[in-house]
């Protein structure tokens, strides 16, 4: 048992740190460190920088052009990026659909889709949830009917994150109503420029349009865009979910945000108020405990043991912590969190923020973070899963 990373892992961390310092544009990290609005260009610019280095698909195996890193190396890379103020990599392409294409797509599909994902050139979206299919994802109704060498797709997806920027979307579609709901689902890649695709942004409680409805009205999709076999899509989707393991806890970002919370609390004069400071202290212990939990999962993966019985806890705890730091930041700002001035969340805005500039985005972030205990399988569903592993 040893808490320290190996000398090789330390060297790796130093190399990543130096590279990130050299290559992450300061105008982007400034926005991340201050929770200012990131544009599509910001996100794609960083994705392409990573892509040029071969690190956008940082979890990819070597045979598909990835660096072939260990679980620990991936963790260290993510930590260095997060602490330096890099934006989160939009996961739909490199983290979500790419592993499915690698595992279940044919050689032609791999050649066609993977390079655009690895370079950051093509923006992917996720078409899973529907108005009637949230936690109960297997009940999806969007229909794909085979007609010759194409599918005709009809239906509606929703909660499609940043779908307004999407060029391609991977969808779970119903190709059969026979048998159990899980057995009639297929995994289809759809060009969002196809006639009949309509994207309508949904305004959320923070006033931003982070998610969308995506409508399919007799959309023609070439049959060659089907991944694997028809009606096996549920299996592929589960494979995809197994790829968001330790990074779902987002502990590296939590460490960065805890630092920001302390800065804000100090500037707002509440850091030395015992009642407030103790709340930060509690969160600090929560973050350290979550980090230890993540390290235990990584260690288990490293030695080939099954970490499943604690991996299920990561999403619950990580999301609760995200909500808590956003809540404490807002409370630190107090009344100055309340003005709703959209321009104040743009970098370089010179107007009157009312409170200190760092207060402007805090309430919006707090509102936005309510999503974290809802998406990716609500925390109540996660508790069912944990209870199942404990109680049988």
């Amino acid at each position, binding site marked *: *048992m*040893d*808490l*320290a*990373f*190996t000398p090789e*892992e330390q060297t790796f961390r130093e190399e990543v740190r130096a590279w990130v310092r050299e290559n992450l544009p300061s105008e982007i990290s400034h926005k991340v460190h201050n929770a200012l609005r990131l544009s599509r260009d910001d996100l794609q610019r960083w994705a392409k920088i990573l892509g040029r280095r071969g690190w956008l698909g940082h979890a990819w195996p070597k045979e598909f052009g990835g660096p072939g890193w260990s679980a*620990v190396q991936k963790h260290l890379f993510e930590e260095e990026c997060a602490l330096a103020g890099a934006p989160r990599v939009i996961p739909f392409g490199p983290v979500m659909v790419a592993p499915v294409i690698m595992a279940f797509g044919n050689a032609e599909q791999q050649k066609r889709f993977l390079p655009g994902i690895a370079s950051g050139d093509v923006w992917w979206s996720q078409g899973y949830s529907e108005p009637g299919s949230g936690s109960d994802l297997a009940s999806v109704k969007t229909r794909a009917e085979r007609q010759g060498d194409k599918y005709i797709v009809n239906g509606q997806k929703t909660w499609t994150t940043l779908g307004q920027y999407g060029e391609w979307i991977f969808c779970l579609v119903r190709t059969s109503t026979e048998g159990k709901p899980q057995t009639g689902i297929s995994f289809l890649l759809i060009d969002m420029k196809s006639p009949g695709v309509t994207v309508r942004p949904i305004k959320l409680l923070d006033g931003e349009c982070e998610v969308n409805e995506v409508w399919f009205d007799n959309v023609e999709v070439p049959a060659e865009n089907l991944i694997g076999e028809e009606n096996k899509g549920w299996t592929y989707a589960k494979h995809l979910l197994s790829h968001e393991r330790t990074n779902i806890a987002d502990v590296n970002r939590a*460490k960065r945000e*805890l*630092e920001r919370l*302390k*800065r804000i609390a100090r500037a707002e004069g509440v850091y030395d108020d*015992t009642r407030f*400071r*103790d709340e*930060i*202290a*509690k969160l*600090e*212990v929560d*973050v*350290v*405990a*979550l*980090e*230890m*939990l993540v*390290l*235990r999962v*990584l*260690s*288990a993966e*490293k*030695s080939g*043991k099954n970490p499943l019985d*604690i991996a299920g*806890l990561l999403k*619950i*705890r990580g999301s609760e912590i995200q909500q808590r730091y956003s809540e404490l930041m807002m409370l630190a700002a107090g009344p100055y969190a309340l003005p709703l001035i959209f321009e104040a969340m743009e970098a370089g805005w010179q107007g009157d923020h009312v409170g200190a500039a760092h207060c402007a985005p805090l309430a919006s972030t707090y509102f936005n973070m309510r999503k974290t205990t809802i998406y990716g399988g609500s925390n*109540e569903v*996660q*508790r*069912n899963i*944990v*209870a199942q*592993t*404990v*109680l*049988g």
Partner: protein
Amino acid sequence: MDFDFSDDQQQLRDAVRKWVAKGYDFERRRAIVDAGGFSREAYGELAELGLCGLYIPDDQGGLGMGPVEAMVVMEELGRGIVLEPLAQTLIAGAVLDGYAPQALKTAWLSPIASGEKLVVLAQQERKARYRLDMCEAKATQAATGWTLDASKSMVPAGDQADAFIVPASVNGKIALFLVERSAAGVATRGYGTQDGGRAAELTLSNAPASLVTPEGLTALEHAVDIGIAAACAEAVGVMDKTLDVTVEYLNTRKQFGVVISSFQALRHRVADMKMQLELARSMSYYASLKLNAPADERRRALARAKYQLGCSMRFVGQQAVQLHGGIGVTDEYIVSHYFKKLTQLEMTFGDSLHHLGEVSSRMQDTAGVFA
């Protein structure tokens, strides 16, 4: 970065687990509680396993092991809610080995390792709560040696121990001393504690003492941190068993014609208990792995760990009783004994609020496992 146990550590765990299962069942434990809360015979069995010399070097008859082995042993003793205070023996071994002059080491380490002598820490004073720097005990140096005047409280197995490690002030500075119970001027008054164990009030009147170290506060803080790590590990063992018996009960007990583990309100509570247990286990690892860090880093880490463990212990203990319903509040059934042990462990070496204060006052700009 590696959290696997070595084969040797696994064997140590197996040996202690086997002794607990075969040699320290609930009936024997109950008999020990009824007889006052401490059994020299059971303590001797721990010594036969070599555990009393865990931190003591090989050439003094010990095992020369480290914090991870101590953690493994304490987890297993926790699973059996063992009453005999091995954590105290771990502290005494480490403190004497780390701070005492050679003559004291030679005289005491080997008998401690063999179980012949039980030495415990007597740091608690009635006005001090959890403060380590508050010490009314006084030491005086004469031509014939040191003498102590002190009233110490809640001394573990105090009327059974053979000697005490006692903080006392010398010209306003705390030093550590060793005092034998058989010495002149030493009086003890024993009583039971809430977890079924034993403690005593200790009065020293002009009692002869040997100086362990003049750097008493440094050594005392180290001693308490060893105790915190041991309490954390012990608590993990208790919580493991607490969750096990709760799961078994929920999967057996029927109401409304079905096993009560089918009810989602109860299932979610179990998920929350599992969460608290695993956060606690993670922080217990952290505590033991930071025990040899520089003092500042060690103190910060141990406070973080004890805060987490305290919160987890209270939640797991309370919820285990609640999920059992009526049977949970009886003396006859084991879960109330786990609950009381967890309660006592939370308040040993600083409760949750105390350690929250420690974490709060020690906060730095950055935080994490490696910061």
